[in-house]
């Protein structure tokens, strides 16, 4: 009856999303008066999950699971859910978790709800609140099946520490064959990804050209942030599509979003609205983004950003 959480890892290291789903799973388990079991695939250090409320970790180690395969991973999680007799499975909002979740839902004949932002409003009927209409609204959704899958929105519930400890148990599921083969992986190394970033620094057309992105990257660097851009910037080819954030690009749900030279079209605002704190730097005091922001600086990015970089460097040196 345990709540099952899928704690994702990347090259052996648990991702931040793993601790978020563990924290969320613990809150749901408290509501239901049950325990939390985590399923972890090829992760090195899983005992730390105990600090986020996990009671038991099913650890799977297999060279066959080295590269991610949604169908096979879904089958592993299904077997874990059946072993634990779990009625609730919690996953994160990473690209891989969102890829496998619908396959898992079919496998478990479960109802699946994505982008959930809070602990369930009620557990009977099982009702949750989620983001919809690209953050322009919330939807209250009820899951009517016995087995339920909850996809937790990144950075919404956050990390909640508890002082428990997690026991590890080796788990050897049946691993299916697949005719889907990963030929190559192209990873931007040593860079914070938009999905994992606490802070995102984003540039728009106000920066006038790709040659001016040095200061955006430097600001991101001093803050330990990911870089992003608006749609026109990616359409113009100034920055790669993978950096485009907004309604048709990547969603952003960071703690701090800094928009530089972005006017704030409705589609852009929708895509970044889930970020907790928004700072806007723009020459145009009438830019719509100021209405959606928490803090603003009306000024020329070319003078404000270099000064801000120096100020933050000094601030960081003091800390």
């Amino acid at each position, binding site marked *: 009856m345990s709540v099952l959480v899928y704690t994702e890892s990347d090259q052996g290291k648990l991702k931040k999303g793993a601790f978020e789903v563990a924290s969320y799973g613990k809150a749901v388990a408290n509501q239901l008066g049950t325990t939390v079991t985590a399923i972890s695939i090829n992760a090195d250090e899983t005992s730390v999950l105990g600090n986020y409320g996990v009671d038991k970790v099913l650890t799977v180690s297999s060279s066959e699971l080295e590269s991610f395969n949604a169908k096979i991973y879904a089958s592993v999680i299904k077997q874990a859910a059946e072993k634990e007799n779990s009625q609730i499975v919690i996953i994160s909002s990473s690209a891989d978790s969102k890829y496998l979740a619908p*396959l898992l839902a079919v496998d478990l004949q479960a*109802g*699946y709800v994505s982008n959930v932002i809070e602990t369930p409003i009620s557990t009977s009927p099982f009702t949750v609140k989620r983001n919809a209409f690209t953050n322009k609204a919330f939807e209250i959704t009820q899951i009517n099946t016995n087995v339920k899958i909850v996809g937790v929105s990144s950075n919404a519930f956050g990390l909640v520490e508890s002082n428990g400890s997690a026991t590890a148990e080796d788990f050897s599921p049946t691993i299916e064959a697949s005719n889907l083969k990963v030929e190559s992986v192209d990873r931007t190394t040593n860079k914070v990804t938009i999905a994992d970033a606490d802070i995102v620094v984003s540039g728009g057309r106000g920066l006038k050209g790709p040659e001016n992105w040095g200061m955006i990257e430097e600001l991101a660097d001093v803050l330990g942030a990911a870089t992003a851009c608006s749609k026109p910037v990616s359409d113009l080819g100034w920055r790669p599509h993978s950096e485009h954030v907004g309604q048709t690009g990547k969603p952003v749900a960071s703690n701090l979003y800094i928009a530089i030279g972005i006017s704030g079209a409705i589609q852009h605002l929708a895509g970044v609205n889930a970020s907790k704190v928004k700072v806007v730097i723009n020459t145009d005091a009438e830019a719509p983004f100021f209405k959606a922001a928490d803090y603003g600086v009306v000024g020329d990015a070319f003078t404000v950003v270099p000064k801000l970089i120096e100020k933050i460097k000094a601030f960081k040196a003091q800390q």
Partner: protein
Amino acid sequence: MNILVCISHVPDTTSKINFTDNDSKFDANGVQFVINPNDEFGLTRAMWFKEKQGAKVTVVNVGGSETEPTLRKALAIGADAAIRVNTKATDGFKVAKQLAKVITDGSFDLVIAGRESIDYNGGMVPGMVAGLTNANFVNNCIALEVDGNTASATREIDGGKETISVGLPLIIGGQKGLVEESELRIPNMRGIMMARQKPLTVVEPDETNSKTASIKFEKPAPKGAVKLVPEDNLDELINLLHNEAKVI
């Protein structure tokens, strides 16, 4: 190659979102509907397969008759035929179940859907269709080539991309990158005229129960006023971010 492109009928990206019936229903009043952007990238890629590789392209929507103008637009862009499954799309599973039946009945080799619709953002239909039809599945797809019975698909991963070789039948959860924004097509007059002659078949739904139910909608609380910091006092901005917002 027999391609099915799944089309969601969604409010235009600039729409203001409102609700009606005690906040239980989306208010379509005054809203312009469009092909879901993620689906449109897939449809445009399908046009490439039609023109270069002789594929036949069918579009499908699960919804009421109000979605037909959106299907006609897809025909005007160049799809050969359209199917509408005549039922209300109440949750992702129900839609996937209807699509799975259309796919089995029509023996499609390649199904392209958007990774998610921009209205409900469920992000589950393509994957559920794959699960229900036992076909291969690639999500967040940003490049797709097909050679005979094998496809090469590139998907976006957190912090990079990954290229996969995979056999047909294949379900794609597509997005921008399948084609560039500049390659999207606006239907011309000839396309619009031809679309009127193309078959739009209405089929009755498979009996399926939804697994989830939408109860109510809420809008975010109005935002407080922005705090403006003079550009010659950036120390104050750092102070606010550190001590008030506690984000640095």
